[in-house]
């Protein structure tokens, strides 16, 4: 055994280092040395066709003229007819022209032919620091990312397609994407990275060259670099050795298109640099007013639904300060404060802190503003692998009264005198019952005040009322969340359907998994487990683990970790070889997560069995009218859980509030 030396060098420290993490280590990073000015020369920059945007909605009048930029006449000539986005920010030009050549029309080589999300620009900038000795201070890096995200960013529609990537969702599948795209790109990283960029045809082509230079094995692995079949279909048996050598030589000179070439050609057509949408966004661009109050609804796995508000205040010099007031279904109220940056006219990135209660100390925020500026949706998240997320929907607060259903709202059919809690803003008086509506078969009999911004409705649901989700309306206002009308709970389901966790605790903290039990109804067809079954409400469950046998004497369940019986939170075992396991295996494995739920629910009588001899009845069965006897029932369900090995590169380390 070789002795281990002292603490690692800069690029593999246990904390982000100043050089590699210059962008996100603002406060404490030592001062970086700015790039030395290049020799003075004439600025080869023509006036930009359109001036770029500056933060806070100011138009930046910079012409992009910067002294000392190197020239490359050859590239200039080549780029003359190549449409690109001019780079006019003096800071970006001064930093990037150390390597990237200025071209006609204010363009810079490579940069002018790319559009990306803020996260993708940040990754690029970090790579320039890591591999190309870019000297940049954290403040400068933030400004460069801001400029590029605003002026070389994605449109709202494009950003929506890449939203899952920047939301850092753990449960996301690329399975529906094209197979060649998945094979070429998805073998190593998520396809969200591909969705995070737009390029012109030449730049898409160069993407392959970059990958092959950095990771030569990619040619054979992901790109299937044999080119056009790799000799499949060639009749070698009837060829002489000389002919085979000739064939090989031809092939070496002209290898044909491999899988990556085909994929990149398609990307160049489907995801080009310039689109009509992009042109329209440029022409219509103006600052979106984000200040003010937003109404928040969301769901925190394991803790239930939450409601609340977000108060946004603009900061001098750009950016926003935030105050989140969140009320959880379990009664907890949490105040969070933070900061945020708004990119490209639609992308909100923030970070909030709280020291109260069982909350993550820090939550990152990724939100996307709607086209009409009236709502945002996205994810608040924490965790080593960003696995602890809260899905949120925000509506801009308006002066008119606003109503919403209280969390996990459900009504039984039939049922007289049921109560429905309603969150109501801007209602000083108790309104008349007739102003509320829940659609056919459901009538609001009475309204009373249940709190400062809370009403309690008394609701009657008539026998035979149609089951499913209903929208509560108050006058012309519609509630953001729905109430589910149902006759009973028929079974339970576990979410996520397949759990994912990673061992950790020594080298890297673990990836946790959180499970919830969903109460389900059999739907209109009366059959269990069919497509028309609908979710009614979350139900409290008791949780345990069971073996998922894949081999003889399978013993994963003894090692993979433990699940909290009450909350459904799974904590994986430690990383590293485990001497107690065969071959010192890691604590990885497959197990089942079991949920048990005991509830009192209406007992629905079995529908009469159909006579097979008679003509098939295509009409939906008529649900029994009730009322039904309420009985105690035990429900159970199980879901597979995969406990995996760690990932040794933390690509997703972002510190938004320090931007």
């Amino acid at each position: 055994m070789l002795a281990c030396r002292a603490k690692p060098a800069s690029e593999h420290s246990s904390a982000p280092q100043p050089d590699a993490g210059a962008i996100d280590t603002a406060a404490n990073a030592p001062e970086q040395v700015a790039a030395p000015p290049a020799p003075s020369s004439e600025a080869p920059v023509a006036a930009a066709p359109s001036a770029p945007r500056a933060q806070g909605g100011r138009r930046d009048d910079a012409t992009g003229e910067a002294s000392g930029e190197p020239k490359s006449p050859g590239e200039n000539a080549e780029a003359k007819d190549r449409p690109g986005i001019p780079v006019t920010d003096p800071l970006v030009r001064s930093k990037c022209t150390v390597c990237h050549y200025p071209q006609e029309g204010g363009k810079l080589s490579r940069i002018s032919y790319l559009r990306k999300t803020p996260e993708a620009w940040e990754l690029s900038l970090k790579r320039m620091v890591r591999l190309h000795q870019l000297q940049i201070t954290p403040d400068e890096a933030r400004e460069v990312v801001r400029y590029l995200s605003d002026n070389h960013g994605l449109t709202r529609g494009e950003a929506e397609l890449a939203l899952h990537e920047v939301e850092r969702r753990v449960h996301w599948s690329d399975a529906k994407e094209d197979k060649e795209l998945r094979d070429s790109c998805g073998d190593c990283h998520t396809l969200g990275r591909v969705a995070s960029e737009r390029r012109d045809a030449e730049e898409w082509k160069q993407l392959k060259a970059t990958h092959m230079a950095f990771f030569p094995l990619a040619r054979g692995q992901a790109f299937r670099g044999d080119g056009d079949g790799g000799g499949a279909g060639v009749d070698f048996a009837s060829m002489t050795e000389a002919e085979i050598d000739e064939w090989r030589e031809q092939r070496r000179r002209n290898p044909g298109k491999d899988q990556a070439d085909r994929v990149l050609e398609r990307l160049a057509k489907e995801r080009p640099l310039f689109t009509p949408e992009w042109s329209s966004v440029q022409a219509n661009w103006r600052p979106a007013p984000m200040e003010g109050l937003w109404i928040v609804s969301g769901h925190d796995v394991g803790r239930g639904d939450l409601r609340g508000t977000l108060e946004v205040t603009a900061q001098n010099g750009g950016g926003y300060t935030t105050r989140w007031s969140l009320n959880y279904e379990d009664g907890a109220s949490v105040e969070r404060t933070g900061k945020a940056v708004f990119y490209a006219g639609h992308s909100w990135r923030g970070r909030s802190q709280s020291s109260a209660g069982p909350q993550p100390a820090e939550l990152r925020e990724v939100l996307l503003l709607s086209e009409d500026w009236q709502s945002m949706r996205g994810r608040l998240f924490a965790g080593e692998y960003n696995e602890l997320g809260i899905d949120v929907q925000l509506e801009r607060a308006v002066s008119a009264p606003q109503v919403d259903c209280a969390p996990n709202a459900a009504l039984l059919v039939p049922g007289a005198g049921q109560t429905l809690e309603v969150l109501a803003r801007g209602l000083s008086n108790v309104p008349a019952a007739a102003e509320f509506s829940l659609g056919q078969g459901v009538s609001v009999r009475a309204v009373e005040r249940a709190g400062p911004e809370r009403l309690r409705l008394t609701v009657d649901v008539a026998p035979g009322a149609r089951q499913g989700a209903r929208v509560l309306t108050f006058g012309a206002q519609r509630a953001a969340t729905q109430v589910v009308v149902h006759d009973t709970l028929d079974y339970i389901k576990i979410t996520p359907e397949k759990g994912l966790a990673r061992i950790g605790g020594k080298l890297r903290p673990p990836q946790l998994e959180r499970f919830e039990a969903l109460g389900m109804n059999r739907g209109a067809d009366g059959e269990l487990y069919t497509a028309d079954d609908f979710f009614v409400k979350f139900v409290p469950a008791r949780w345990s683990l069971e073996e998922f046998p894949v081999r003889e004497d399978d013993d994963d369940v003894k090692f993979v970790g433990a699940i909290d019986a009450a909350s459904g939170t799974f904590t994986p075992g430690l990383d590293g070889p485990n001497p107690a396991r065969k071959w010192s295996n890691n604590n990885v494995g497959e197990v089942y997560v079991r949920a048990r739920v005991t509830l009192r629910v209406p007992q629905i009588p079995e529908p009469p069995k159909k006579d097979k001899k008679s003509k098939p009845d295509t009409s939906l069965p008529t649900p029994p009218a009730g009322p039904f006897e309420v009985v105690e029932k035990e429900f159970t369900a199980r879901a597979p859980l995969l406990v995996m090995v760690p990932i040794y590169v933390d690509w997703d380390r972002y510190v938004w509030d320090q931007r």
Partner: protein
Amino acid sequence: MNHLRPINRKAAALARARLDQPGAARALMLVDTPYGCSTQFAPGWEVDSSGGTYGLCQPIERDLYDCYHSCYWPAQVPDSLTNFPSWTKTCGSPVQDWSQVDLVFP
């Protein structure tokens, strides 16, 4: 061997050999490929071709340097060629000293 019949010269020589005698057999090469190391991208980093963990290289520390030096999983393990040439400087044997290598923050 009672149920097998040699069908070529090499197999016949093997059948005649007294392998239970000392010195009759000599190891010429020890394959140091770790148990379960994959040569293709299926299995993946997290799961084997069946979607589970049984077919993976285990423990992962056994294979970590091979992944690192060959840049086989550049999104999951630091690559020695381009981005993180000194990742393993602090650790000679990952199976013994696995906790000495550290995360990288690109």
